[in-house]
């Protein structure tokens, strides 16, 4: 009976230790919620070497380097470089530019304040990427206000030119 109780007690203690350790690991190594770029940059030492979730729009070129690639992701505050396995970026169809809104992605990876592998860059080494929203081409429409202003200013310019010709005569 005592042996059985002792065994149960040991089991409970082990469970508590596992729970506390798991919670500690979760808190110290991994941040379950998406963290903003400003938070990461301003508190880089706190997040250094930890697993973070970062979400934003893929911008510019995806630059392939061998089996890996650099992808820059902008969360609306700053853009951060993501070092990612090239196979993970195949789904990215749009990257942000003047004529397109880039795909939004959620990156889970290790945050580096000064990456040893990449000459001290502040970056994230991605472990998983999830596309949260698809980008699209932006259809540019002629701004009628600007067009009208061009015409009015052209009229004024012609008037000045004609007046200057008359003055010269």
């Amino acid at each position, binding site marked *: 009976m005592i042996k059985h109780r002792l065994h149960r007690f040991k089991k409970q203690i082990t469970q508590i230790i596992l729970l506390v350790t798991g919670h500690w690991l979760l808190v110290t190594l991994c941040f379950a919620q998406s963290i903003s770029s400003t938070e990461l940059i301003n508190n880089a030492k706190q997040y250094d070497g930890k697993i973070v979730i970062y979400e934003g729009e893929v911008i*510019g070129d995806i630059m392939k*380097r061998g089996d890996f690639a650099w992808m820059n992701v902008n969360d609306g505050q*700053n853009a951060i470089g993501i070092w990612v396995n090239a196979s993970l970026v195949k789904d990215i169809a749009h990257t*942000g530019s003047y004529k397109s809104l880039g795909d939004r992605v959620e990156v889970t990876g290790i945050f580096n304040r000064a990456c040893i592998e990449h000459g001290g860059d502040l970056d994230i080494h991605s472990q998983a990427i999830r596309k949260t929203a698809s980008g699209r081409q932006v259809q*540019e429409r002629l*701004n009628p206000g600007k067009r009208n202003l*061009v015409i009015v200013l052209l009229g004024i310019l012609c008037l000045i030119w004609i007046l200057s010709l008359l003055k010269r005569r």
Partner: protein
Amino acid sequence: MILKPRLEDIKIIGYYLGKIILGLAIAMLVPILIGLAFGEVNPALDFLISIEISLIFGLILTKLCFTPLEKTDKSDRNSLTGFTEKDLNWMQGMIVVSLAWLVAMALGAIPLYLSGHWKSYLDACFDAMSGFATTGLVLVQNLDHISYAHNLWRHLIMFIGGQGIVIVALSFFVKGASGAFKMYVGEARDERILPNVIQTSRFIWLVSIVYLILGTLALSMVGMLNGMKPVNAFFHGACVFMAAFDTGGFAPQSQNILYYHSLAFEVVTITIMILGAINFKLHYHLWTGNRKEIFKNIETTTLFITIMITFAITAVGLTQSGTYPKALMLFRKGFYQLISGHSGTGYQTIYARQFINEWSHLALVGVICAMGLGGAVCSTTGAIKMLRIGIIFKALLEDIKRIILPERAIVVQKFHHIKEIFLEDKQARSALLITLAYLVLYILGAIVGMLFGHPFLNSLFESTSAAANVGLSCGITNADMPNALKLTYIFQMWAGRLEFMSIFTLIGFFVAAIKGK
């Protein structure tokens, strides 16, 4: 007795100002072509509007202020027609230059503001002045979605400003060499490479264009090898070259040079920044085969020494704070920001807040010193400049020798700048005065920053960066900062780029207009 400016003075100033505005309007054709090539309709309209406004102002000024020489002036062959222009005197030349930069800022900001990427017209003016003065501080919003046309304009104004707005006009519009020289000096360039100042400005253009082609090709190649699309690699190559050679610091993407994640890109930009920080006169001698000059010239030797000293300070500071765990990382990050600051470029491979959060005070002091010193005279850099530092050091040596040697000894100090030159008191005085003016400008900006609640070192960092036309930022410069601080930095960029004389003349002109008889 102060003499009130005459109507003729105002007309001559207005006439040359009009010509410079017309030149600026022509420059705006380039982004229109790029915009049309990439099918960007609204950005092309932004530039069309800006061209029309510039042409209206330019035409009004040139037509209203046209002052023909009297027909009795037989010395000028053009005067017989009665349609020639009067040459500038020193006062007029200086005022044309100081006003030209303000007008260029106001007009150059129009297409930026129309793009919708700047929160206010003042913000657009800030970036325009930052571009023309080759500073590199930015208030642009959502840069990663800006059009090719506007992005090119941001970098083109750096290229134009780096050569000197007035030099553009000198090269193409101004006939009189005498008046041209006055404007050339007013734009902080007092060295003639060739006997004629117009030939000099054309040589500066030749050097810049040759390097533009080579630099763009090098950066494009690196970009493509790094995985960029060829069109983007070429566009970024051209933009980054213009901003690096003219020691500007704008970049096509919001992450600045960190966007490329490339050591090769950093090496090429360091080379271009150093080329931009060298005196155009030295470029001329290197091009004409006089390669020994680079080892003898007071500017290059001073530059080498100051880079070593300021980097040592920065490296010790970074080691103290343990910011970078490996020596190679420390060198890559520390040396890049230092060269960028010393050359007055302002390219960054770290985020602005990292300076404050991760760099030690000593490392920041190293970078602030480098920014405050600058590159060579007659280059595209700002700040105190190497020739002045070298001269002050030589003058100090001379004084020490005078104290040590017997009273009857004749102490002569020489320095090598293209040729052997005997150091005179007036050279030392002039160098000291300009140095003092820069130091006052750095401190004043820092005080204004502190008035808005920023710590001293942060304020001094940002103020020195603005006044020395560098562009490195520790995070103070952003669109939400107070307008008074934006205006302070605009003034610092303007005064720092023109090296004070033309601005003092402008102030004197206004005082004379009010108090003069």
